[in-house]
């Protein structure tokens, strides 16, 4: 029986006139796509090994390399495209589950691109953010429905609060860095995130990787995660963070656990995660102490007890069909914030078939959850953090207007650090020094530069959000949060508009 040939995904073109056979590319490529032939004093490229990370293209000293999508085409077939053939061929070869990294790359509708923002004209002046204050400060945590005053005159002078508010996370911009574990990403990547969060006044999330000892000083800007494998979870770890997040699910792989291949578990990762060097770190699909909502409640309160109620405890779930009632249950179980991770949420490793077929888009999930929490009268009881594929500040401001308190960005942060979305994080061969533990590769990511680039991204997006808010005549983010009148839909069905809770473009107030 003939083997079905797997066509290479990429073709690397080498401009012979520019190539000086310096072999930099050979040393750079962790996939060994470039090979030096001593006899011919010439560098050849084995395109079949190229993953399309564009590292060589970026760093070739003479600019001799171009990485392109392979133009080779099979007979046109709407049903059986090249991708499908490749997958079948690979599985016929190996008998294994297809793996991938990063968020879903399939052409599901991106609702952000069907939602438009409002702006002021005449009857309501727009506000110039360069001249007037424009406030993005956001508080994450449980809020009471009302405040009760003690003492003070009936005119409010000298009034004090009867009860102190529960601990809140203060964000200078409604953007946090998503959970990405040390192990799945390098320590330099973790440092970049921690330093940037700390400098800008926001938070990064440890994911299920424990907290490397070098990162303890940034605890005030750290959300520590407790996931089903409980890797690296101990008392010191829980105390180190500003908040705790229980991870139930992840947008890229709802319903299944995690798998950090042993190749990525070196000495440091082993110490941080508290597992032997070189062993696979397998996170079970469910938490084996959470089989129901009341079990979740126990874990939430166990963590609160352990940290003396000094830290908000949140729960991360993936956006699935029933996300609204699940989120309601999570809030009733005592979570101070709920993180919802949508269909396009990233991952370091997930079965391709799960990533591409399970879950719902984050836009619909935000709208459904916010509406449901309001219907139940418990929207104040927890903050909602949305995650999963935010590409621009435009996506973020729309998410907030739909009802999210803040958003997590993961993929965008990695792109700022150099990621080109080759989707091969699980191989541990990331040329950009992000999703790898190979010291030869990780040293390519300088955390000082990485942090600066992340701070730049946060600053740029925050400025853009301020510009858009000013245009709408709104000078505080809380007036935009859940303000769906600021949004209009284009090219959406009545049902989609109804779920999003927005009017079609062209309809006035």
């Amino acid at each position, binding site marked *: 029986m003939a083997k079905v040939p797997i066509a290479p995904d990429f073709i690397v073109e080498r401009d012979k006139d520019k190539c000086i056979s310096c072999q930099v590319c050979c040393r750079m490529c962790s996939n060994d796509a470039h090979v030096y032939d001593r006899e011919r004093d010439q560098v050849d490229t084995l395109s079949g090994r190229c993953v399309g990370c564009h590292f060589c293209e970026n760093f070739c000293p003479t600019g001799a390399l171009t990485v392109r999508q392979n133009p080779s085409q099979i007979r046109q077939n709407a049903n059986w495209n090249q991708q499908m053939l490749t997958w079948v061929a690979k599985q016929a070869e190996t008998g294994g589950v297809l793996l991938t990294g990063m968020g879903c790359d399939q052409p599901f509708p991106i609702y952000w691109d069907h939602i438009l923002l409002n702006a002021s004209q005449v009857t309501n002046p727009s*506000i110039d953010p360069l001249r007037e204050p424009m406030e993005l400060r956001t508080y994450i945590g449980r809020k009471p429905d009302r*405040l009760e005053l003690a003492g003070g005159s009936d005119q409010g002078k000298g009034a004090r609060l009867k009860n102190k*508010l529960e601990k809140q996370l203060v964000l200078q911009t409604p953007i946090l860095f998503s959970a990405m574990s040390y192990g799945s990403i390098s320590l330099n990547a973790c440092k970049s995130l921690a330093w940037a969060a700390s400098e800008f006044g926001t938070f990064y999330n440890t994911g299920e990787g424990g907290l490397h000892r070098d990162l303890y000083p940034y605890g005030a800007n750290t959300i520590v995660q407790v996931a089903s494998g409980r890797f690296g979870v101990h008392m010191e770890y829980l105390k180190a963070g500003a908040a705790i997040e229980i991870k139930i699910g992840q947008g890229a792989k709802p319903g299944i656990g995690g798998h950090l291949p042993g190749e990525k578990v070196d000495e440091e990762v082993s110490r941080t995660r508290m597992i032997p060097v070189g062993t696979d770190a397998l996170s079970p699909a469910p938490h084996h102490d959470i089989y129901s909502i009341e079990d979740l409640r126990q874990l939430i309160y166990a963590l609160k007890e352990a940290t003396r109620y000094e830290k908000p405890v949140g729960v991360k779930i993936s956006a699935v069909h029933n996300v609204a009632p699940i989120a309601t249950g999570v809030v009733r179980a005592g979570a101070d914030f709920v993180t919802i991770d949508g269909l396009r949420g990233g991952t370091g490793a997930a079965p391709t078939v799960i990533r591409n077929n399970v879950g719902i888009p984050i836009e619909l999930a935000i709208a459904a959850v916010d509406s449901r929490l309001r219907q139940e009268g418990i929207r*104040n009881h927890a903050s909602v953090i949305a995650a999963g594929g935010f590409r621009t500040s435009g996506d973020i401001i729309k998410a907030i207007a739909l009802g999210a308190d803040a958003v997590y960005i993961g993929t965008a942060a990695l792109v700022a650090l150099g990621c080109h979305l080759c989707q091969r994080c699980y191989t541990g061969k990331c040329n950009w020094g992000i999703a790898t533990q190979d010291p030869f590769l990780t040293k390519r990511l300088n955390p000082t530069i990485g942090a600066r680039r992340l701070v730049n991204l946060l600053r740029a997006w925050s400025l853009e959000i301020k510009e858009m808010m000013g245009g709408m005549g*709104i000078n505080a983010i809380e*007036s935009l949060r*859940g*303000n769906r*009148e600021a949004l209009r839909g284009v090219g959406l069905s009545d049902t989609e508009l109804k779920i999003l809770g927005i009017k079609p473009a062209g309809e*006035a107030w």
Partner: protein
Amino acid sequence: MMEGLMSEQMYIADKDYRVPSGCGVSGIMNEAGERFSGEAIMCSIALMRERSNGLGGGFAAYGIYPDLADYYAFHLMYETDEAKRQTDEYLRAYYTIMHDEPIPTRKIKVISQSPLLWRYFLKPREDVLAKNPRLSEQDLVVQTAMYISGKIKDALVASSGKNMGIFKGVGFPEDIGEFYRLEEYRGYIWTAHGRFPTNSVAWWGGAHPFGLLDWSVVHNGEISSYGINRRYLQNFNYSCSFFTDTEVITYLFDLLIRKHELPFEIVAKILAAPLWADIERMPEEEKEFYQSLRIVYGSALLNGPFGVIVANSQTMLGLNDRLKLRPLVAARWGDFIYIASEESAIRQICPQPDRVWMPRAGEPILGRMRRNNLAKDPLSQEATAEVFEAGREEEGL
């Protein structure tokens, strides 16, 4: 709907679309509770004719029904007799109607048509309250007003408070005042509104002030945070069926002051919250207090340009947005406090106030009754008349 909007007989629309409108507002209060005629407020708002375009005007008056001060005064607008029949029936199920009559009007040239205007003085039925022990009298009144305006076709409750009333319609405010014969009433708080909506859909119910219980709100501006303010109020069972900024402002005051029992000064700091930068500079305890206010009541922040005058039987409050994007001026003269969109509108009726000032963004102007139980102890007609005459002379009316 469209047919209705086009019809000249349209007084009570199904809903008021959020029509942006410019406006003039004015308010006068006598803090000693001395009552004076509606002439002064008509005179003040008439001066700001430029700020309205004849498509809506109205007044709120407090202290005008001293003899029936114990009963909820409902001002109703009806487009059809059927609406009145249904409303009467509904009211009888929950209240004893102590007195009811048409609201007196006079024919004037510029107002040729009007809905049927009726007022009722209602006493909640004991058996109704007894059956629902968790329902307060005020909650019943709120429910009644919301039911009639929202569910009974062609009927609208203009006001529903004790010893107060709202008089409004389509026209310039001074014409509306003349139509309702407001110079014949005496009150200790008067507020007025002249409207400049951007489209021609004008209906009587859509004019301002907006009222609920003894709240009345006149407002100049457009609330950019409307979407979230409305959704926030829905959490607390306010249905917001009129789709207007003024309605939302009224409910926010009702929620924060009546239900959450916060003082006006604090409510002003919720609706026009101080900037974070200013909060940061406060002493520690104050800082925590204001942080908490913003954290808990962020969805109640009114964002966008506004100048608003809110009144209830004890208080008149003027408030600007946090950037002061709309005008509002205040003055004091003896027991009187004046608030208006323009200083000229104050000087017109009080040429030499003791003090005139331009309140800063978010800084409330507050007039407070010095006598708390006025409703139970109305000033005698004679005494009021004397005070009124004196006031007129001194104010140069």
